[in-house]
């Protein structure tokens, strides 16, 4: 039995309110949650997997688990923590299975290509000129590559901070590590990114 939406104002509801509705079989509430979390989750999973297709597969599985287990959701935890934890576990299991959990090495080639970094310099120099469409596209590819080149633990943590805008405590809860470890990962991730974008440090 799928409940039909009874409230046209579902979009204004919190995640926690929506998941309780999902627990009762409300499909519309589930769709809204998926709309909210699809991109963040795919990106989050990409942080682990470095493969868009796999990230999407895992996101799909995470959503299915959310639906199947909605009635088990405990209000004491934030919904976002719960769903990211599900995704984290799926990613880790997948990585274990594929034996891909090896330390990644930092690819320094990014900073070696002056042409590819112009667009980054433009943003970093507080230039008021908006990026052209081509520049924006170039930037997105460059940033994706930069993030991709980080070691897995730093990559996933940095994505949670900068892209998913999660608090250190929530990240620690999701990853099952301490807040200190989160701080350390972020510090190292930024140091590595600075190495990649070394030209940003030229002006001193």
């Amino acid at each position: 039995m799928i409940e039909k939406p009874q409230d046209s104002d579902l979009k204004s509801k919190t995640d926690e309110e929506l998941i309780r509705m999902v627990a009762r079989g409300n499909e519309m509430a589930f769709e809204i949650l998926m709309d909210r979390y699809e991109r963040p989750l795919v990106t989050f999973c990409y942080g682990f997997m470095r493969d868009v297709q796999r990230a999407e597969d895992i996101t799909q599985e995470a959503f299915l688990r959310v639906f199947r287990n909605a009635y088990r959701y405990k209000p004491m935890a934030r919904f976002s923590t719960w769903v990211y934890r599900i995704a984290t576990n799926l990613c880790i299991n997948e990585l274990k299975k594929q034996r891909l959990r090896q330390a990644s090495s930092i690819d320094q080639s990014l900073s070696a290509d002056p042409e590819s970094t112009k667009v980054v310099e433009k943003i970093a120099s507080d230039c008021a000129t908006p990026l052209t469409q081509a520049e924006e596209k170039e930037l997105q590819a460059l940033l994706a590559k930069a993030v991709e080149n980080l070691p897995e633990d730093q990559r996933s943590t940095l994505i949670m901070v900068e892209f998913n805008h999660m608090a250190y405590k929530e990240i620690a809860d999701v990853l099952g590590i301490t807040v200190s470890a989160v701080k350390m990962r972020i510090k190292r991730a930024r140091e590595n990114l600075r190495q990649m974008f070394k030209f940003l440090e030229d002006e001193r």
Partner: protein
Amino acid sequence: MRELIDPFLDGELPEEEAAEVERHLRTCNQCTYESTQIIRMKEVISRWQGITPSGYVKQEVLAKVRSEVSKHGTPRERYIRRTVLSAVGLSLVLIGGVVSIVYVSQWSRAASSVGVATENSGTTTTPVPPSTGSVFARVAGLTGDDVRVIGRDGDVYRPADRHEILPGETVEVGETSLLAVDVTGGRVLIGGIAWKGKAPSLGLSGSTRLRFASPEAGLDLARGTVRVLASGGGVGDIRFRTPAGTIYVPWAGPGDEAAEVSINVTADKAAVGVSSGEAGVLVVRPDGNTQNIPVKKGHVIETTSSGEFTDRTE
């Protein structure tokens, strides 16, 4: 001080520490330089839009979910059906005596609890919903096997030996535990496996608090009256089964609004009334068919001779 810069720029520091970092930055060129670099880095990274999904994720999830629901019902219905049906065939006898059991949800004793008053004048409060919760039990004057909690796979595990828990003691039941409760001779005996890796059998007397980590653990009664006081949503931990095999599962919620539902089940009849909030009863017929019946606030429904519910509210 350097280790505080990242948390400072991420807005993670409490006000006092943040002010301290700000003061430091006014005088330390090295930290100011590092901060500037991180800010510039954050500005660049903040432009990243993340991975653009292909658009198939949501479609495929919805297709799978719809298929599952049409074949097997919602997950909660499946859970209830599986749990309740697994109890069928197990003998459940509520004999005389006085039972007074109080379950309290681990979320909030006051807000997320279900109250049960048995025909024998006891009171029970159970976690809402099914899932996890604590049990606070007081037992007195029972003369036989009165109450059992059924394990997640439907088996009842009788205690191989008895270990008495002191009043007020807390016991945790692990996620994989099987759990059974027998009330014998004025004491509740609880047995299970994987009980913190120790002996599976426990005895209980006086007041003892139990924590159900396994949502499938529940309490079955053959007859009696349940009064459910709930908020936060709930179903499943208390079930009534008539001699004919029909099972009644009162539920409340799932919203935060407090709900109160009373259910009275005897050998040949069941009545359900809701005095506040959102509540109702799930009926599982002997043939496995389920019917979820929300009850309007202020209304009482009662079974007719054909077994169907009718609203008897004036």
